[in-house]
């Protein structure tokens, strides 16, 4: 038998160097996050005050630019509407895929096209809603908050379906079989046994979809459009945080740019809050 030889110096150095490079690149991956957060706080905090949240943008270029009240409320309204559409439909389609579509050709077809939908760029959804709902006359021509909501719902739908499917699949078949053996009909098993036991996971998926939708700009550009005032009329133009930022970035005026940073900080805080809540629900998931 030969004695074990130590790892040669060259190999050890290569190993150390390679591990160092991997560590360094991981550090590089974190730089943008640090920088974005740093600049958001540095430039955004200065903009934030009570008035910032309680006044509408004035549209004045040189004078007082106003706050972002209409944008915050608009984002909440539009995203709430999108959630009301996308979450029930998405969860039910996921339920179909898991309860009836497993291993079936049709189920796989739906699954495939849902994946296709995930990859569709958000601007294309906006384009689609623009053609179908904004320019054609069957629902009334013109920009409207609800049309933006529908565009966001289309964007959320595949995310809700796919994440829903994953968590519904985790519900053990034993649970379904037990309920069926007790004589429960399929619909009752699906709605009263499977859905409740997957609830935390479904909430996580939905919240992540909402967080993604809340930050989307492109689908809203020509569906709900930019407007100054606060509106609670879903059939009229409606402001939103991303569009407020987009509109302010293009202005060569420091106070407007500062408002953009403040609005961006607000938006990121909102999205992070949603992500955080989603993570908390993920912890409560029984089946992982």
């Amino acid at each position, binding site marked *: 038998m030969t004695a074990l030889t130590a*790892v040669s110096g060259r190999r*050890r150095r290569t*190993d150390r160097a*390679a*591990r160092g*490079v*991997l560590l360094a*690149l*991981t550090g590089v*991956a*974190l730089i*943008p*996050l640090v*920088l*974005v957060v740093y*600049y*958001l706080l540095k430039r955004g905090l200065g903009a934030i005050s009570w008035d910032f949240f309680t006044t509408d943008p004035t549209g004045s270029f040189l004078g007082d630019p106003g706050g972002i009240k209409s944008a915050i409320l608009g984002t909440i309204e539009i995203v709430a509407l999108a959630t009301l559409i996308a979450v029930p*439909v998405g969860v039910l*389609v996921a339920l*179909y*895929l898991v309860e*009836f579509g497993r291993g079936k050709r*049709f189920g796989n077809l*739906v699954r495939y*096209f849902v*994946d*296709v*939908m995930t*990859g*569709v*760029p*958000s*601007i*294309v959804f906006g*384009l*689609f809603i*623009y*053609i179908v709902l904004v320019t054609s006359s069957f629902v009334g021509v013109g920009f409207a908050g609800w049309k933006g909501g529908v565009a966001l719902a*289309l964007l959320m739908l595949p995310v809700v*379906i796919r994440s829903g499917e994953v968590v519904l699949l985790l519900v053990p078949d034993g649970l379904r079989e037990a309920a069926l053996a007790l*004589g429960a*009909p*399929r*619909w009752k098993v*699906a709605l009263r046994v499977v859905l409740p036991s997957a609830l935390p996971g479904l909430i996580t998926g939905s919240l992540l979809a909402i*967080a993604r939708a809340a*930050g989307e*700009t*492109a689908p809203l550009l*020509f569906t709900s459009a930019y407007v100054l005032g606060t509106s609670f009329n879903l059939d009229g133009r409606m402001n939103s945080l*991303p569009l407020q*930022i*987009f509109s302010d*970035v293009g202005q060569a005026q420091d106070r407007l740019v500062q408002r*953009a*940073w403040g609005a*961006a900080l607000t*938006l*990121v805080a909102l*999205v992070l809050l949603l992500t955080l809540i989603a993570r908390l629900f993920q912890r409560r998931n029984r089946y992982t």
Partner: protein
Amino acid sequence: MEAGSLRLPPGGRSLDERSPASRAADPFFRWGLTVLATLVLALIAFFFIFLVSKAQPALSKFGLLGFVFKDNWDVSRNIYEAWSLVVGTIVTSVIALVLGVPVAVAAALYVTELCPARAKGALTILIDLLAAVPSVVYGLWGVFVLIPHLKPAEQWFSDTFSFLPFVGGSVAGPNVFIAGLILAIMILPIVSAISREVILTVPRDHKEAALALGATRWEMLRIAVLPYSRSGIVGASMLGLGRAIGETIAVTLVVGNAPNVPHQIFDQGYTLAAVIANEFGEAANNPLHVGALIAAGLVLFVLTLAVNAAARAIVNRTVPA
């Protein structure tokens, strides 16, 4: 069913008969859900057909090939040939891949294989957080932080390495490199997350066998982990590519929006998604212009579709859904 043959107590119901009304709802439930799923399919079909039909004015005037492969996007003369936009889209996405993928894969390797267990959770969350920053915020940051701060460095690079292809000449403020850099940051979390999943599927045996044969940790990664997960990582990168191709707002803000084929990476450019975002407002009253923008959307749609389909095929081969 056998239950019917069991002796029932007087007045009892067999299992078959149990709550017949409620069982009768089963087929409706099933068909209801099926119809809903079919509607989603119909929606996608409708989506595609509608886009094609509305893009007709532009496609019939310039021809599909002319629209995609000729370079002349001139709104004032009502000519829409999108080659410069296609090139801009591809160039920015490729820059994003070149910059983003190595970092994303390295981070995935480090987090899954090398980092101390305590740091694993925190690192994963931090990298995933990059995905939580909205596109428009990256755009804002790009315009007011990246562009001004990187310009001197870009000019230095351009002057020093002008012998390289696609480098040299004066640096524009907003340019395709900056757009690619922002896209790299935006695709980093998704590429890294999927790569992590793929790397986690490498069998423990393979890694332990490599280590038992005396491999160092890096050699273990190189001979056991990377070959096994290579195709999955390629798939992850292509999903990132799909994301980069369709990304709109951040790119619109930093790419320069000049409909010319960029000659070097610090030139201004334009992308399919950005042109839609920018020109839709002014196009409303010009059916040809609207048609051209929708055709641009269609090209974008088909491009992302092809990339994503290929990516899914590759990823699914390695990670069973």
